[in-house]
């Protein structure tokens, strides 16, 4: 698979789905805009088309993409908001918990950690 944007080990179809979600979040892909075809995704990432299809299907099931028969795949209206909602839910386990664990190892108190976050947010 090309690029450093995709890490080893985790199911590739999940990574493909997350990448498309990321592009929706960043407004690189806009709502009602067309998503690259399965063959385009497969060729670009140098992955099996079945894997690309699985990734796209995750997003179709989640209502983030929708199919227009014979034309292709499109970003659903409201997709950005629902991606954001899902990511917020995962934020705690993905980012906050590891942060707190690492802070604990370094004997950084919750107060100090809060202070650091506040300072970082100001920048």
């Amino acid at each position, binding site marked *: 698979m090309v690029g450093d944007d995709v890490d080893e080990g985790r199911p590739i*179809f999940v990574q493909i789905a997350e990448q498309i979600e990321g592009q929706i979040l960043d407004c690189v892909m806009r709502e009602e805009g067309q998503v690259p075809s399965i063959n385009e995704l497969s060729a670009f990432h140098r992955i099996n088309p079945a894997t690309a299809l699985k990734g796209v299907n995750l997003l179709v099931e989640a209502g983030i993409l929708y199919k227009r028969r014979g034309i292709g795949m499109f970003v659903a209206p409201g997709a950005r908001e629902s991606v954001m909602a899902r990511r917020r839910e995962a934020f705690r386990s993905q980012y906050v*918990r590891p942060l707190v*664990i690492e802070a604990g190892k370094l004997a950084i108190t919750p107060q100090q950690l809060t202070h650091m976050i506040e300072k970082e947010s100001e920048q």
Partner: protein
Amino acid sequence: MTIPVVEAHGLTKRFGAVEAVTDATFAVAEHGICGLLGRNGSGKTTLMHLLTGQEFASAGDAMLFGQSPVENAAVLGRTCFIKETQIYPESFRVKHVLRAASWVYPHWDAALADELVAEFDVPLGRRMKRLSRGQRSAVGVVVGIASRAELTIFDEPYAGLDAVARHVFYDRLLQDYGVHPRTILMSTHLIDEVADLLDHVLVIDDGRLVIDADADELRGSATTLAGRHSAVQAFAEGREVLTWDSLGGLATVTLTGLSDAEKSAAHAEGLDVVPVSLQQLIVGRTRGTAREELAS
């Protein structure tokens, strides 16, 4: 139910006292890219020769499209077998190989073949025996892709091809496969390079089939945990351990079948939780001397 394109039932091949393939049973479904992975000498080539009727089985059956491949023109006409050791008639030039292929393979795409030959920079008028190893491999790859055979078998098709040419091969194979889906069975020990191309994985070790699995499922099936020895040991207990290393008070272990909840629990215990690539997983399953070779 559709008939699998490739099937093996208890397939076994002995050469004198050596058993090259032992009791292999598997099926490859229509439309997909299946990798046959394993170290050198693990039995990949013998297995492919059995599947295409170029060797007689000592026991068991090989089937292509539901029929025995041995002396079966109907079945072999739907199959394209590309191997490193392909022998060409003495006087053959590259263009003769392509012309012969156009007669043999009913779905042959001559325009695609020309395009690929140009891309691999193979001189059409040169005699096959005067080509470099890489150029000969490139001709095989061109025939394999342009044949558009219902079943294409590549046996380590890249000998002598440099990294750039190998990636041309992967790209063009994927591209053409996307437009013309078919069944591709490819043996290789360059697991990292082809891992993402595959939708199914067969791993052979010392003649035995040790993994027969969906590539995506396999990829998520193992996890490496690293951290304090006692914590790692607690997680490893009662599980299949693929690798185990320890250094002082630290240990690193590769386990299969950890649920997401268990991974979070390990993380909460302060362990590093690292996913395992297909290559690492296969190295773990075909251990011993295989490690260095597969990792190289």
